[in-house]
């Protein structure tokens, strides 16, 4: 009797404790790391709204870009991170703070340093609805830096508009590149609406054009200066002791030594057209060249502006001098970002009136 009782009781207890409870409701994972169009080039985004300003995470584990969110009530532009080969967005960074609920807040021009610091341009303006956002009515616009893990806890680097030491007024910033953990170089821009063709019924056009490259140090004693010889710069890249850049209306790529300040021309695309969006990794030089681009003097501004709707991607082997055009067909690209591995790049391309991102392999 006793043995049977012990055995029964132990069996009961064992059964009771050993069993696992059923799981409560869990949300399914709807994500994927496969692109919808896996061809070459691979279309990464299919949104009818704008996807732009791609950048790579330092370890190449993802693509960080700006995503327009017309589905949000405040029509914010957010950062999104997607897998390196495309697929479903894995992280999104928006200005969800309550005071921002009645304004359109934009996060753009992301650049992540090797130690995980995010520099970006953020701005806020009244919400007027997609797709008619007005960019010249900002409540604030500023260049900021923050840990990538907490991008909203940002330190303001420059409030815009700002005046460069040479007296030039910049309204925006783009092509933000980390030189090291305490200094940046970026393109100071005119970023606003302007009448490109004067006349009684002139339509205002949103224009973003470079006015010069700005060297910026961070911290309480941070300072900024315009790099000499970079008036109307159109792009900038950094690497191996050099600042590479292009100028508006110019087919050449320049390299400025960060130690000596000496500038040299490292490549000239010549008749291929205006070079911009330069990237250099090792012996590879990549740039967008020619295409739908113009460099025109605008009387209303008193200086020329470069309007860029995309061009061909050229890959140049600086050692051998070979120049390969990546893109085929009529599709034009701009604002490219080379992967840390150098094996692929992401670039914007227009699909209708908005831009999407494409992934291309790099030979």
């Amino acid at each position: 009797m006793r043995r049977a009782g012990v055995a029964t009781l132990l069996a009961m207890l064992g059964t009771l404790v050993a069993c696992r409870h059923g799981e409560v409701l869990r949300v399914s994972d709807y994500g994927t790391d496969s692109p919808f169009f896996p061809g070459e080039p691979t279309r990464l985004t299919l949104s009818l709204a704008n996807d732009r300003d791609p950048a790579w995470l330092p370890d190449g584990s993802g693509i960080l870009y700006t995503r327009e969110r017309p589905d949000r009530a405040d029509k914010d532009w957010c950062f999104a991170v997607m897998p390196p080969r495309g697929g479903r967005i894995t992280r999104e960074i928006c200005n969800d703070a309550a005071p921002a609920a009645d304004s359109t807040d934009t996060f753009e021009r992301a650049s992540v340093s090797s130690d995980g610091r995010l520099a970006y341009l953020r701005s806020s303006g009244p919400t007027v609805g997609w797709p008619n956002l007005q960019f010249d009515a900002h409540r604030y616009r500023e260049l900021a830096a923050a840990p990538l893990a907490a991008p909203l806890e940002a330190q303001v680097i420059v409030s815009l508009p700002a005046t460069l030491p040479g007296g030039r007024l910049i309204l925006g910033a783009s092509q933000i590149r980390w030189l090291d953990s305490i200094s940046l170089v970026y393109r100071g821009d005119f970023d606003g609406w302007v009448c490109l063709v004067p006349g009684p019924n002139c339509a205002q056009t949103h224009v973003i054009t470079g006015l010069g490259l700005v060297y910026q140090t961070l911290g309480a004693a941070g300072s900024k200066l315009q790099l000499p010889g970079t008036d109307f710069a159109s792009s900038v890249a950094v690497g191996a002791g050099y600042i590479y850049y292009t100028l508006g209306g110019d087919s050449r790529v320049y390299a400025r030594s960060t130690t000596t300040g000496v500038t040299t021309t490292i490549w000239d695309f010549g008749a291929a057209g205006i070079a911009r969006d330069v990237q250099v990794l090792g012996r590879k030089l990549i740039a967008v060249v020619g295409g739908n681009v113009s460099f025109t003097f605008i009387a209303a501004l008193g200086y020329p502006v470069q309007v860029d709707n995309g061009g061909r991607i050229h890959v140049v082997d600086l050692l051998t001098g070979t120049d390969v055009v990546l893109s085929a067909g009529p599709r034009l690209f701009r604002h490219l970002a080379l992967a840390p591995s150098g094996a692929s790049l992401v670039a914007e391309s227009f699909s209708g009136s908005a831009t999407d991102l494409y992934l291309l392999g790099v030979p």
Partner: protein
Amino acid sequence: MSGAGTGTVRLRALAALVLCAAAPLAAQTGGAISGTVRDSLRGTPVHGAEVIVVGAQRSALTDTAGGYRIREVRSGRYRVLARAIGCGPILHDNVVVPAGATVLLNFRLDCSAVEVRGLEVRTTPDIVLDPTVTATVQRITADDLRHLPVTTIEEAVALSAGAVGESYRGGRVGQQSFIIDGLGVKNQLDQSTGGLGVRVPPDVLTEAALVTNGFSARYGQAISGLINVVTKDGGERWDGRLAYENDRPFPGSWDMGLDRLVLEADGPLVGRVRFLGAVDATGRLDADPVNAPPPADTLDPRSRRPSLLPHNSGEQVDLTAKLTIAIGAHHTLRLFGLHSVDQRLLFEPLFKYDDRFAPARRLRGDLVSGHWQYAGVSGAGASLVTDLRVAYFDRDFIRGSLAEVPTRRFGGFTGRTFHFIGEDIARAQDTAAARAAIPGLDPPQLSDRTPWGVPAFFEGGGGRGELAWNHFRELRTQLDLDVGSGREVDFYLGGEVIRQRVETFQRALGYQPVGGKAAVPPATASSFTPVSAAAYGEMQLRWEDLAFTMGLRYDRFDSREESARATLEGLTVQPKQTVSPRLGVSSVLKGATVVVSWGRFSQAPDFQYLVDAAFDDTVRTGRFRAGNPALGFERSSQYEFSVRARPTPITSLRVNAYVKHLEGLVASVPFGLNPDSSIFGNTDYGNVQGGEIIFERELVGGWGARIAYTLQSATATATNAFQLFQRIRIAPGGQDTIRPARVEFPLDYDRRHGVTVILQGRVADSAGPRLLGLRAIGGWEAAAIVRWASGLPYSRTNPTGDTLLGLPNSWRLPDQSTVDLLVRRPISLLGLSGSVYFDARNLLNTRNIIAVRRDNGQPGIDGAAVDSAAAIAYRAHPEPIPYESPRYRSWADLNGDGSVSGPDELLPLYVAAARDYYQPLFAYGPPRVVRFGVEVIF
């Protein structure tokens, strides 16, 4: 039944079921033993005989008529010894003394012998027919709790006739007071909405009782009933109980993630110090399960597991310890500590797929008390019992967004204290800091984690921004004197002083700063120190079968709340006072006991209504309302006529008829011209009339039963303009509009009919054939509770919810019914007894509708309303969903173009989301909930 001559009748205590009786001083911790001592040969009274309650420090001497009465014997089982010089003593074992009852125990001493004889006598008092009592008590013992399919004291008390959950005889929640070991304990801050905060583990109980009428003048702070809980003292030897129960072995939706561990032990420590300790811990993955129909959409995750809600887990831990110290022959000191923690994740459909943003709450309660009792020697029927109790009660409540959702470690247990965003601001009552957005609280966004993907209905990324905290403390000093003068007269005198501290804080939409376009209201906070006091006197006179009980109670409370508005308007809040007389007469007429009683009762209002805040009223809809520090007592008058009889020795029948008038109940009334602003006032009145019929058959011959039927009508009378504006107008449309002065409508707990049937059966240990040396069915026990009740009332409104349709509470929910079952098989382990048991609630899985929408009277909305809601949501967000979006669902991309776009693809998603969101989960009561348990008695 109670005399020695009936000692051979072995009625197990569990046969008592829920005992209904009347008591001379209902809601006490102790009862009385009364009777006579006579010479067995001559039949003459034995004068000067000593009757001793062994182990209870109580004794008495018989008077010249041989009579004796021992008062304030703590509820429990005792041996009672009678002895006299020249006579052989008589010892009665197992004399059960219920709280508030009088055990009739007669001795016949053999005065020709001197040898002590022990009798194996199990004695239960006939508390049905006892004519010396006037109150109505429905009692449940610790054995009942163990042998019925109930787990908590609240569940046990809810079996009583006239109880609807925690509403008693039509009153609303919060109109009751808890008495723990004779000590009043009440959450005076928000009892009507927040509960007590401490739970006594059932294993330390001697008994719990519901007193619904004519309770003693000793007790106040209640107008509908008392829950009287008596805990046991540590025993003379170590014993205890260990039990573990869960639903792990059960498949599918039968597994609600329940684990419960109970450990109780008591025994002597050193000398005359006895210890009692218990822990009762319950964890549930789905702490508030619902019996809603499973969703028809197979893409809805809950279609596969319809009963287990996310973010709905809870854990409760109750710890208690008690020291009983006998000091000398007449003094006893009891030190009692109780600590309860209740942590809950709260499911909200809004955050169904981003559940970490759903709210949570933590409720902690601590009670520490000291009880010194002096029991004077009874001589010639006179006695003095003095009880001095000092207690500190501390209750802390917080609700809001969790700083971090803790990981569950075992079942529903996290083993960690919940912490909330902004908790430090709330505890500091920093309303200045709370004007800004509370750091860590983010505004909610439309969720992209739903199965449907579309931006509609469900939210995530942030919670509601709610932060509510309150803290209630009180130090209570209570003195009670029980003066006995002969067997015929008892006097009860005493009083109490209660010093309280109330602190509250509330912040809504905490992710936004105060003000702004959203008109975010400022945080509210209050801190004040009310003082309450009471004094009472009560007398009971008895002549044979006739007893009179008369009592008078004086209550006073001074909120000492100095609200900003009161200061601004120069108001001086005066202390409130009230006097409550009580009267009862009982006698025996033709074998039945007849009781007539009347009493007035009062309670101070919940202090939450004294301060500015947003709270739900039990009758009204919730709003932001101004507190009223000038609120006075809520009162009731109760009349009752009851008849108790025993048709047979093992059956009893009780019939109670009662009328209760509720006066000055707190309600909200419009305040100024702002339609969304109101202030509390003592403006509601109610009438409750009803009858109860309770038939009981004791557990004899292997079965017992109890049937209780309640018929009741509870109506409220309002002079509230909020209601009156909805009523009939004379000369509608004219300038000379006249509105009625008052309206009458059902109270919230107006349950017209209720039937509760309790059946118990037990197979004799020796019954049935032996299989492998074991009795296959011997010792098996089963108990079933069958309940049926007519529906509770509710109010209907127009679709926008701002206008009542008809009178308040003029609509009725459907009937409800449940069957609960407990089956137990005794087992032995290493010489220890124990059992395994199966406990099922709502065995038949009845889908009871317990709430409906106020706009249509149905649990949910119909298909057309779903389509309408979906269409509205679609129009708000017609944007295509691209492939890379977290909202993209490949199965919804019908044309495979990498984008879910257009009404053909998007609208079905919005319809599915609307159907999902509007599932009326909490409109339904709990499903079948089962558990399997093992217990060891040591």
